[in-house]
């Protein structure tokens, strides 16, 4: 039921629009099948599949709007939902910032769908979990992991004859392996569009090796260190910086990207020259939807180039107020890298710390973008180009803005959580205390 083709989706949207009496009406139809398997203590704990189709309709009278949702698709239910949205719209206060709906748009095709992922079934998930658990049992290690696959589509349409449809598949696998004596823990993850790229056994072996290597961690004094952040670790911090690229927050002085005296920092060199961050929904390794939910086209956009802030994203209202091009927030981002591997970065490091991942990152100072959090599941000391030994986990207080200023080298980007992130070598990363957690 959840997977409708373009014609089937358009038929439902057109039907809902045919009932409309409001000045403007928009419809969003989302279908999704989500499958998962979870395991811990070397055995499966839960598994399941949820299949759902849901529709949201927004009606607008003047500058008043109302939205209603439903997951039933007979004619009576669809019309009832439309009328409900109109009733809410009439009761709602005027939105002084309301922008009239967009008209027809041309969207390019993005390669966001894979038949391989859409065919994943419970047996596939069970085999994927077995391939991960069995090697751990063989080595007297304990596996806790999770595999989730999503297959679905998003269709949008409105009374101004805008229409868009995009099919999506996505999957995530993550594994934590712990040693029997509870002294070592390792983590690895893989994010994919096409399930033929997933290899739970190979990913688990990375986590197993980290768990074994991280036993008997030595204590290193907190302080500033050169770090090599694996893509999982660096990506988490970069995502927090990307989340603050909103133009209005910057223009109104409520953001790191706001300028003293008013306005924003577009055009200013804020980071090291080798920092290039962009989004591209048509990237073959990290495809994204060709449209935002409000109908705006997603295109290839440079956000930071040679360390210079090139663009911020805008609501349509704020872009109109400022008389600039209205860029929607990206669905994923890409940090440019090199062909160097993570091992190459380690070889070129005299003294440093390799970080597998971070945990519980929270904002400390939004003005300077300082965040706190901890290392987890594999933190190692590097000396003379080699990993010497595991170290106890650290708490950090650090800003991704500082991080990009202190960027020394980058490696080859890999896909993590819908973004492309390279391993990064950063100097003077600030660790403030030690944690006893393993």
């Amino acid at each position: 039921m959840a997977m409708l083709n373009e014609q089937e989706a358009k038929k439902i949207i057109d039907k809902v629009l045919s009932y409309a009496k409001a000045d403007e009406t928009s419809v969003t139809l989302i279908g999704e099948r989500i499958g998962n398997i979870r395991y811990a203590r070397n055995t499966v704990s839960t598994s399941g599949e949820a299949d759902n189709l849901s529709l949201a309709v927004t009606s607008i009278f003047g500058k008043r709007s109302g939205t209603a949702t439903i997951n039933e698709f007979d004619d009576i239910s669809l019309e009832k939902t439309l009328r409900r949205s109109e009733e809410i719209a009439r009761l709602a206060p005027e939105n002084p910032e309301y922008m009239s709906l967009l008209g027809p748009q041309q969207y390019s095709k993005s390669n966001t769908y894979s038949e391989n992922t859409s065919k994943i079934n419970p047996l596939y998930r069970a085999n994927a979990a077995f391939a991960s658990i069995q090697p751990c049992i063989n080595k007297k290690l304990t596996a806790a992991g999770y595999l989730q696959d999503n297959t679905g589509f998003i269709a949008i349409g409105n009374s101004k004859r805008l229409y868009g449809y995009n099919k999506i598949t996505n999957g995530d696998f993550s594994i934590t392996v712990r040693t029997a004596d509870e002294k070592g823990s390792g983590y690895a993850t893989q994010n994919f569009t096409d399930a033929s790229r997933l290899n739970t056994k190979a990913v688990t072996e990375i986590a197993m090796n980290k768990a074994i290597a991280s036993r008997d961690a030595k204590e290193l004094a907190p302080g500033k260190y050169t770090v090599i952040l694996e893509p999982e670790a660096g990506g988490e911090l970069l995502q927090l910086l990307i989340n603050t690229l909103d133009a209005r927050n910057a223009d109104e002085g409520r953001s790191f990207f706001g300028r003293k005296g008013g306005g924003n920092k577009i055009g200013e060199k804020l980071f090291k020259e080798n920092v290039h961050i962009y989004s591209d929904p048509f990237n073959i390794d990290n495809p994204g939807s060709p449209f935002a939910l409000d109908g705006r086209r997603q295109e290839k956009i440079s956000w930071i180039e040679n360390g210079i802030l090139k663009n911020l994203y805008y609501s349509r209202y704020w872009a109109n107020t400022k008389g600039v091009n209205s860029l929607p927030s990206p669905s994923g981002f890409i940090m440019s890298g090199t062909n160097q591997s993570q091992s190459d970065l380690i070889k070129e490091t005299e003294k440093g710390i390799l970080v597998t991942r971070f945990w519980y990152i929270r904002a400390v100072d939004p003005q300077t973008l300082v965040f706190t959090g901890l290392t987890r599941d594999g933190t190692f000391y590097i000396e003379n180009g080699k990993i010497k030994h595991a170290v106890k986990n650290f708490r950090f207080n650090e800003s991704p803005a500082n991080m990009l200023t202190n960027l020394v080298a980058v490696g080859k980007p890999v896909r993590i959580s819908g973004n492309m992130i390279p391993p990064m070598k950063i100097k003077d990363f600030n660790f403030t205390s030690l944690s006893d957690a393993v």
Partner: protein
Amino acid sequence: MSFVNEQKYFASTDGSYIEQDIHRLWPTFTVTVVDKQTGKFKTRDALSAPMGMGYEYLAGKASEKISGPNDLILYRYSYDMVEDAVQAAKQAKEKHTAKSIQPGKYDLVLDPNHLGLTIHESIGHPLELDRVLGYEANYAGTSFATLDKWKSGKFNFGSNIVNIVADRTQPHFLNTVGYDDEGVPGKEWELIKNGTLINYQATRDQVHMLGQKQSHGCCHADSWNSAQFQRMPNVSLRAGKEKLNVHDMIKKVENGIYILGRGSYSIDQQRYNFQFGGQVFYEIKNGKITGMLDDVAYQSNTQQFWNSCVEICDKDDYRSFGTFRDGKGQPSQVSAVSHGSSTSRFNNVNIINTNSSANI
């Protein structure tokens, strides 16, 4: 403002047919004051608490207000949103000229609207039995409060005035229900008694591991399409037995900080090392509040911190803190939970300066 009406029907082959109608609300806001001259901005979030109540929470009843130090108005089970917004605007403005904290050791006086999150993170989570057993190892983490510590019967989680109770029956609290999602009636039980760890939070299929015969009723699913599993009940610090209010508590503090509101919070995956901020900070010198402070966070170890608890105000000061969005599990599920406490004092806690923390 968020309003939730959860209508839930549970039936099982064990013979349960249970219908529940649960209401909760969360009125909140953030005030931001921007100084264009300096390019700085400061914020103050609402001092409300999400509650297991309806619109009546917004009545702003005078009988539910507490007159706090420095003319602060604190709210028990009725909230005046406009009054707090005025208070917040004044305080956010004051933050621009507040003294930046000198890092070091201070005695902390923690308001319930702040302390609730510290209880949640450093006591509520590590005493979830599924974490202790390793079922959350790939996501939320495991726990330092291992079974051997509990079995010893001597693990001093906190000082001897620290009594922590788990409860699914407390009126107005978010995790209060008639029955859990396995059909087990809500109840109250002790987790920490006179500072010693004595119990965990468990479901039907876990509780036998503790040698206990009755489930704690901690099973919850956040939707019809989610699998139910062990979630945190309301976990609260019992009020002090001696008569004591926040004014008298502060009078005895020589060098301290009074902290209110939910700020930045972070804790490791086994719940040893934490760092917490707040919304409003006041300097205490020789028993008096001497002005507002800024850039404050405390960094400590769970067991060390709870053993530094030296005073707890009485039941007249008891209030709740809560959240709608306690996250756990894969796929991730949310749960609503409250934490009650009275203003409490913790001695000699490590304070960092958050403004310069990245440059220490």
